[in-house]
């Protein structure tokens, strides 16, 4: 089966990165050509124009999440935001204690930042979610200790798309006087975020997951009540001392425009994408022995993560190279390790290995989805014909009871 419509594969990897929306690119270009000033230059209009553009963009970020522009700090991306939030807050409030709670299914940037805190003397609890990927609130509650200083939970999971109950988790944090950080890199433009109401102290954002450019992100730092963080980069004192370094106006402008579009078009777009997801789900689950990873209800419409039993992951990826998808998260897909997120859900190594993340978005069409379904049906069939495990399964052999010659 050949994909005749494109010379590039069909892009179904929106959770790894999104294309830049043409409207965003159009808005960015003047800021790399004529309006190129350094926003920190206060002595001439080049600097002022850049600064004004930066502040307009800051307002757009704030508007999407119902925050005050003063609560938005620019960073180079969600990885930096997560590192700044986790290390910055836990350092600043270390007098309260040195215990951090997070989820085993967080993005690497959170997991590894917390691990770094462990290295310098903090203690961390990595909570396992329920098999549907969601955090059990009671279980979470019982993990909080008097010396818990920070909790970090992502709003939307990058691999399985599940949406955590941030309100419930945040309320428990408030009751226990614990700083609450939320990684919302995968959430903007997909779920409504109202920081006036949400009990969240720090929230990380990324531009390139929401049709903006790579290399820019933001951190929300609550002002009422005021949350303090220790800066991780020192220098010119940009971003009210919280994050030094020359800002790149064109990238910031791009993020602002991307978030404006997200705010204005989110509802309509989500309806459309939900329809595509339903279609994709129906088509793919017609294939025997498929398992959807993560809760289907509390989930963004942009994500479907499915394990195909009795086929091996790498050969599967190779077979479906006419679509661009990922197995596990993009940041780790170069390695052969099965997804740690799926393993945390209790999936076997085999099912974790043979999982595919389909992530769809603004430019996904119905025919893309139809093509994907047809491709998967054909290729899974072919691989299973090759698979001794499939043959055994069909012969009624219980694979659990087979003694494998492990090597």
């Amino acid at each position, binding site marked *: 089966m050949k994909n005749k419509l494109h010379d590039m594969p069909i892009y179904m990897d929106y959770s790894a990165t999104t294309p830049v929306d043409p409207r965003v690119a159009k808005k960015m270009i003047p800021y790399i050509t004529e309006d190129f000033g350094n926003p920190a230059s206060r002595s001439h209009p080049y600097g002022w124009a850049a600064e004004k553009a930066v502040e307009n963009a800051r307002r757009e970020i704030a508007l999407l999440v119902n925050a005050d522009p003063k609560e938005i700090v620019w960073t180079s991306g969600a990885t930096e935001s997560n590192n700044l939030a986790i290390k910055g807050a836990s350092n600043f409030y270390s007098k309260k204690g040195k215990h951090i709670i997070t989820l085993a299914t967080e993005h690497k940037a959170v997991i590894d930042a917390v691990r770094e805190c462990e290295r310098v003397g903090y203690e961390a609890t990595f909570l396992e979610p329920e098999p549907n990927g969601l955090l059990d609130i009671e279980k979470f509650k019982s993990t909080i200790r008097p010396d818990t200083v920070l909790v970090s939970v992502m709003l939307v999971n990058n691999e399985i798309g599940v949406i955590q109950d941030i309100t419930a988790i945040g309320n428990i944090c408030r009751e226990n006087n614990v700083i609450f950080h939320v990684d919302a890199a995968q959430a903007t433009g997909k779920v409504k975020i109202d920081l006036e109401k949400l009990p969240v102290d720090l929230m990380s954002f990324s531009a390139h997951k929401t049709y903006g450019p790579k290399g820019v992100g933001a951190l929300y730092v609550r002002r009422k009540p005021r949350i303090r963080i220790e800066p991780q980069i020192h220098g010119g004192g940009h971003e009210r001392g919280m994050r030094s370094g020359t800002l790149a106006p064109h990238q910031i402008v791009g993020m602002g425009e991307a978030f404006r579009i997200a705010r204005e078009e989110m509802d309509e777009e989500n309806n459309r994408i939900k329809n595509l997801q339903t279609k994709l789900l129906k088509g793919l689950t017609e294939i025997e022995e498929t398992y959807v990873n993560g809760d289907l209800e509390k989930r963004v419409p942009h994500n479907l993560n499915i394990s195909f039993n*009795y*086929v*091996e*992951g*790498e*050969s599967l990826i*190779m077979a479906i190279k006419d679509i661009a998808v990922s197995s596990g998260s993009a940041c780790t897909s170069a390695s*052969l390790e099965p997804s740690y997120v799926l393993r945390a859900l209790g999936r*076997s*190594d*085999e099912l974790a*290995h043979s999982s595919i993340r389909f992530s769809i978005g603004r430019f996904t069409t119905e025919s893309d989805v139809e093509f994907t379904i047809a491709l998967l049906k054909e290729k899974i069939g072919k691989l299973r*014909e*090759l*698979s*001794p*495990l*499939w*043959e055994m399964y069909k012969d009624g052999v219980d*694979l659990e009871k087979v003694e*494998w*010659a*492990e*090597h």
Partner: protein
Amino acid sequence: MAYSDKVLDHYENPRNVGSFDKNDSNVGTGMVGAPACGDVMKLQIKMGSNGIIEDAKFKTYGCGSAIASSSLVTEWLKGKSLDQAAEIKNSAIAEELALPPVKIHCSVLAEDAIKAAVKDLKSKQK
């Protein structure tokens, strides 16, 4: 991961896919690997009355290199005696397919599968 043209060819057009009756006394079956490791290879050889392997079939659950390794050896096995078959070395498979270092284990698995199939057949012949 960049695959060699030979791996791609065997992967796209695998040779000798299928199964023989494993209870046939002229059929030797070797099944190696484990699902948890990401590869399971089932290799079968069928011996003619002259003691020469006249046919070979395989099924493989594994990456493209594992599929290619097993597909390749089914071609190599035909026309060999059991002792000649057992002589096939993983390094020859790896070299023929230009496997990268991280995929060498696929060729090792294929060698193991041949040995297991030969052993199975010899035990049936006794």
